[in-house]
């Protein structure tokens, strides 16, 4: 094993409250700052861990190894993802680089369900509630609803900040106590997330077929036909197509975006697809 690993626990540097605060602060600002289609939030996670890495791994090889690991694909809901970081820090503090694989597994194992739960709460539920209130008041020119929403957002910000320390102190206990339950909770959370994503399709994708066939006085609207077959048929078909394309070897997210962009412009230009 590596050098860092040889030291007894007491020899190994300890993480202080300040370290936790710093990580929390970094996670807040960086988690999505370099978000990209290839590894999504990997860089944010890495950035958050840099001071910890510096502290725990004096050895150059260890550092590189851990940095590399932390720059692997990662994606979760930023609001509650701090909990995972906290757990990770506790484990690395105790086990050092020996925990490399454990941590990688932990991150991959938890990110999905944290995304499901966090996105539903902070992406669907809260914005629906306060967005409704605020928008309705706003329509009448009344800023109170908007101000309430602002205040709620401050409160949420405050709460978020408690999750990383919580993960650090309680994470392991919670996760291990949960045992097999954890898998089930994960699955249930993903189920919830997937359901919401299903509903997202007709809500977020705007793809009508404005084609109109005329011959004499006869007017045929393509979208009317499509609606009769199935509502939101085109969005569904496009999602399915993109999903399938992403499974192809030659295709990656970058290429797909370019493809869709060009296809969109062309189809739009010819009036085949519109809003």
């Amino acid at each position, binding site marked *: 094993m590596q050098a860092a690993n040889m030291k007894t626990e007491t020899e190994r540097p300890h993480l202080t409250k300040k370290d936790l605060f710093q990580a929390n602060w970094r996670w807040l600002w960086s988690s999505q700052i370099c978000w990209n289609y290839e590894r999504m939030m990997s860089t944010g996670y890495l950035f958050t861990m840099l001071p910890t890495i510096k502290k725990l791994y004096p050895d150059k090889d260890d550092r590189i190894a851990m940095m590399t690991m932390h720059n692997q694909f990662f994606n979760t809901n930023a609001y509650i993802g701090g909990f995972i970081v906290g757990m990770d820090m506790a484990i690395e503090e105790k086990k050092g680089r020996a925990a490399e694989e454990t941590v990688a597994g932990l991150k991959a194992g938890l990110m999905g369900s944290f995304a499901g739960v966090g996105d539903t709460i902070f992406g669907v539920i809260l914005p629906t509630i306060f967005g409704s209130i605020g928008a309705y008041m706003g329509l009448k020119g009344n800023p109170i609803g908007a101000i309430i929403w602002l205040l709620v957002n401050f409160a949420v910000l405050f709460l978020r900040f408690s999750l990383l320390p919580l993960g650090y102190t309680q994470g392991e206990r919670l996760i291990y106590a949960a045992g097999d339950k954890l898998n089930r909770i994960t699955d249930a959370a993903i189920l919830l997330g997937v359901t919401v994503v299903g509903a997202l399709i007709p809500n977020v994708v705007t793809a009508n077929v404005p084609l109109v066939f005329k011959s004499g006085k006869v007017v045929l609207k393509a979208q009317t036909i499509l609606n009769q077959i199935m509502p939101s048929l085109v969005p569904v078909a496009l999602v399915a197509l993109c999903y399938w394309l992403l499974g192809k070897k030659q295709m990656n*997210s970058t290429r797909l975006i370019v493809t869709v962009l060009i296809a969109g412009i062309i189809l739009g230009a010819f009036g085949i697809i519109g809003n």
Partner: protein
Amino acid sequence: MAIAWWQIILLTALAFWMIIDQITVGILCNYPLLIGLVAGIVMGDIKTGLVVGATLQLMVLGVGTYGGASMPDFMTGAIIGTAYAVISGKGIDFAIGLAVPVGLLMVQLDVLARFTNTFFLHRVDQRIKDNDINGVARNVVYGVFPWGISRALPVFLMLLVGNNVIQQVVKALPTWLSTGLSAAGGILPVVGIAILLRFLPTKRFISYLIIGFFAAAYLKVPMLGVALLGLAMAIIFYKQSGNNNQSDDEDNQSNTGGHENASGEYED
């Protein structure tokens, strides 16, 4: 009324900040209502800002960005709509009519930003190999620019040139391009959803994807209602997987009928 240079600067700063805000602290936030409010303050007409923001807000109620899916950028729409409604005095409908296509076109810049960051990602990879921690940090932070500029630049330009120029440019643009771009904006979120579905165990949960779609598309249930239904199904799933995997689970009381306390209440 003409727009003052300091208004242009403030709104441009707002545009830069708002997307950073969205991916970090989430205060001013990720939704058009609040942006409309701030833009209204800057333009000296809170009410117009609020109404524009609120109208756009209602179009995306409960529609969050999942797994990197882009959504119509009605925040930028709210800035532009508010600014020109106040400048031109043409009212709310004019503002909305401007904000919606702007929001759809902006999807492409959201995608571009998320896309450009890949460049820094690879530089980070490089710095890691060199054990250059500061270099790593620096390159991550650079990600702030694609995000911020993707919103700030177009807002700045659109405000700078003025409404008339915009309309002239728009007129000069071949129709096929403008409709094409707007159509592309409408379908680009599809990519985000598809990526998301790739990174979720979609095949295992395909039924629930269908049910969520069914509820939204056929039954016209709003997002929060779908989340409620999803919650109910998630709980059923949780309990059932417990039944299958560990029969002595404390949640599985199907054989015992629950425990009652002295006064007949269920303790659970």
